[in-house]
């Protein structure tokens, strides 16, 4: 496996190549898309992106955790976590296939 890291710059470049906007505007739109996703999730809303996957905010209850190094018990506060559920299309694409299982 390669080990390259793709960043915002690569996403902007892809938008620039594909849509024909200026580089500056492509970067601004990548930012706008991410902002829209983050804002929506911060409100606790689920985001479903067809053929890619969905992002769901889950609420976790309080539980007792343990510091693995010292063994000291610590309460873990109730919190909200973000989980990503990849679509079958994405899973198939990553496994070199065409469609879902």
């Amino acid at each position, binding site marked *: *496996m*390669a*080990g*390259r890291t793709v*960043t915002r710059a690569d*996403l902007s470049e892809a938008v620039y190549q594909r849509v024909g906007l200026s580089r500056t505007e492509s970067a601004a*739109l990548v930012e706008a898309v991410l902002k829209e996703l983050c804002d929506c999730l911060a409100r606790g809303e689920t985001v479903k992106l067809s053929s890619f996957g969905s992002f769901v905010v889950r609420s976790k209850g309080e539980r007792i955790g343990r510091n693995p190094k010292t063994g000291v018990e610590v309460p873990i506060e109730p919190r909200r976590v973000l989980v*990503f559920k990849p679509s079958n299309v994405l899973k198939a694409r*990553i496994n070199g296939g065409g469609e879902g299982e």
Partner: protein
Amino acid sequence: MIKSELVARLAEQNPHLYQRDVENIVNAILDTIADALARGDRVELRGFGAFSVKRRDARTGRNPRTGETVSVSQKVVPVFKTGKEMRMRLNGGVDDQVGK
């Protein structure tokens, strides 16, 4: 929110673009992420999170309904790790990272 709603919102904020262009932009972003993962690359988006892939070894599974054993071949699964800033936003500005 679903993809078409995302596109509609962005189109509203960018009246100089056609809805079709906005759709292409969103798809270009998602395709770039998917292609990167298909190559085994990592995708890091500060403020949001990082996508990467993990290999799952072949294993013998069981059909939960019939109890029959089935062999599951080796596969690669995409994983997403929420970024620090996003995690804080979900929890009212407090970093909830376990162990910190």
